[in-house]
């Protein structure tokens, strides 16, 4: 069991979080594009998603190494592979997992046929995990300090967070001018569990000493905040995990508030600019809170005789535990959701309606579009960024395609493809990126996959 924990620790240590949905963003034939921009140019009379199947998305990334590097069945000793992975990664490398499942979603048009105002709502469950490579701690665990005299091991390398939450949201989207759509979405977060250890500092070092053999100092200012976890890890707990998670999903967890904002603007008929900011919000953790702190300074000199004739035995073990105590506190804390920023610029061509159409702007009318997107997300250290170029084509009236090329810290060769099709009122979409990596999935540094099923009743723009 201990091994499993160590592996978990290692994997955690080697993690990061990207929630870039570059294919879904501004892919407005899919209702879920509203979740990446509440001001997306998506028109409907009403729509609803197939419950539990309307939006499933999985996003896994690792900048420093792949599954293959660690688990290839190639006869090489696992410990050697681990050392190689450790040697080839830095403290900036990260592993991330993001998963979202829409429980339900829907939307409807409000006002009369001339109004272009839309309401969308829904609830989804999300799991996030992000960890940087705890390089120094891993070196210490693998090698010890004997061959690293003089090296200062940095405790700030331990930087991770994980959370499961449900999000209930409602959004409003309106054409405030013919060429400008704005939207906003309010969100209520219900955190099922959270573990955050992102503000650690401290060090441990061993230098050659003068009077003692070594000068050894450990300083720690580390903290792990958790909420909603104690009931699951306590062996004496008789909590029914499944029903507990269900209860917390339905707003019974630690609650928070947030919002999304976005717009779509057409400076010219065939030029489109969009931007959105998502998940500006916080969660207040007040229930089932356990915060572990490990704070203090200790200079270790050894077990030393005093020779002064006084019997004053000191306990080094106790001294250490007193100097850097492991404390548990139960006061509430606040976490911020990782905020995301998206922006795009798109040029459309081949208007299928003819050049002098005077109808309302809608980029869906064009057969082809090319564009560029920027994605930025806040992370415990530096923001995570990605740049995407894309080509969108309406292959048939009911089949849209979007191809993307994305450059980010995970990969320079990320090619993605999205397909959305309408069969009658039935809409189905599949989006996947890093297609080149499908040649050997185990060597992929990042993969994302989304699909979903919806029923869309289109806005026919007619009085009846």
């Amino acid at each position, binding site marked *: 069991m*201990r*091994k*499993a924990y*160590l*592996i978990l620790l290692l994997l955690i240590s080697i993690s990061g979080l990207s929630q870039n949905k570059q294919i879904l963003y501004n892919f407005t034939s899919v209702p879920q594009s509203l979740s990446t921009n509440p001001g997306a140019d998506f028109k409907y009379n009403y729509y609803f998603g197939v419950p539990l199947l309307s939006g499933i998305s999985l996003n896994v990334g690792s900048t420093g190494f792949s*599954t*293959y590097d660690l*688990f*290839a*069945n*190639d006869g090489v*000793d*696992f*410990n050697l*592979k*681990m050392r190689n992975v450790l040697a080839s990664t830095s403290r900036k490398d990260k592993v991330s997992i993001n998963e979202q499942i829409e429980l339900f979603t829907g939307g409807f048009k409000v006002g009369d046929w001339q109004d272009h105002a839309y309401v969308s709502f829904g609830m989804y469950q999300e799991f996030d995990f992000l960890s940087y490579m705890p390089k120094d701690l891993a070196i210490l*665990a*693998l*090698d*010890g*300090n*004997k*061959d690293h*005299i003089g090296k200062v091991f940095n405790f700030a390398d331990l930087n991770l967070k994980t959370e499961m939450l449900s999000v209930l949201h409602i959004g409003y989207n309106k054409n405030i001018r013919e060429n400008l759509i704005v939207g906003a979405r309010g969100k209520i977060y219900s955190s099922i569990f959270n573990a955050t250890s992102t503000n650690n500092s401290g060090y441990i070092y*061993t230098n050659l*000493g003068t*009077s*003692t*053999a*070594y000068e*050894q100092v450990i300083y720690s200012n580390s903290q792990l905040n958790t909420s909603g976890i104690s009931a699951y890890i306590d062996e004496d707990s008789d909590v029914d995990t499944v029903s507990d998670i269900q209860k917390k999903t339905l707003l019974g967890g630690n609650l928070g508030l947030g919002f999304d904002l976005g717009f779509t603007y057409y400076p010219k008929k065939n030029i489109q600019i969009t931007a959105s900011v998502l998940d500006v919000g916080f969660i207040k953790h007040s229930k089932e809170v356990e915060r572990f702190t490990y704070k203090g300074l200790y200079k*270790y*000199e*050894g*077990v*030393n*005789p*005093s*020779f002064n004739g006084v019997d004053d*035995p*000191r*306990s*080094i*073990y*106790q001294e250490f535990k007193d100097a850097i105590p492991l404390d548990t506190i139960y006061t509430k804390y606040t976490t911020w959701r990782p905020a995301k920023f998206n922006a795009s610029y798109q040029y459309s061509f081949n208007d299928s309606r003819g050049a002098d159409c005077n109808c309302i702007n809608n980029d869906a009318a064009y057969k082809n579009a090319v564009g560029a997107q920027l994605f930025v997300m806040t992370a415990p250290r530096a923001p995570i960024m990605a740049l995407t170029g894309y080509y969108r084509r309406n292959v048939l009236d*009911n*089949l849209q395609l979007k191809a993307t090329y994305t450059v980010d810290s995970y990969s320079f060769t990320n090619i993605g493809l999205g*397909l959305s*099709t309408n*069969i*009658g009122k039935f809409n*189905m979409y*599949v989006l996947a990126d890093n*297609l080149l990596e*499908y*040649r*050997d*999935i*185990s*060597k992929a540094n990042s993969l994302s996959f989304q699909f979903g099923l919806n029923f869309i009743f289109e806005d026919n723009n007619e009085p009846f």
Partner: protein
Amino acid sequence: MIKYHLYTILGTILLPFFLFSCSSDLDFNQANDLRLEPVIVGNLTYFDIAAHQFVENGVEKNLLFDAQDFDVFRDSFLRQNLKRADFSFEITNTINRSYSFDLNLIDQNDAVIYTIRMDVPASNGTAVIIDKTEIFENAKLELLKASRRLEFVLVMAAGPALSENSLGSLKLKSHATVYLVIE
């Protein structure tokens, strides 16, 4: 017609994945082979006694004695994973007297279960440096793990008289090298 479309489109979407997606042979059970072998060095003990400290009120003290708790093995993690420990000592004598130094490992019944002895010749003006390394492995390691206290016994042999103005010192530096195997 709709059905036909559905199949075509589904096929178009899924075919590339099935055709081109593959994975190298992976073996996640390798994780069970995980074996950490850190080697840790740390201070063990030190002292620095000036020559005049062997004289009290004009009378030589020939025996210095102290005992300290040595309770690191109360930690079960260390008890389970310790495979070997090396204790390295270096005594530097610049006093014109010879000494014998005993480090006794004492168990919970107050019995001496192991003694590390170092004999230190007198200094004739230049520093006398004595090194010793004691390796605890296998059965000997069990003795170390059973230790609860360290007893320091320093005996000064007969020789030229010391006064409260005598120069020189007796210094001990020591460190432990601890070999852990965590599986």
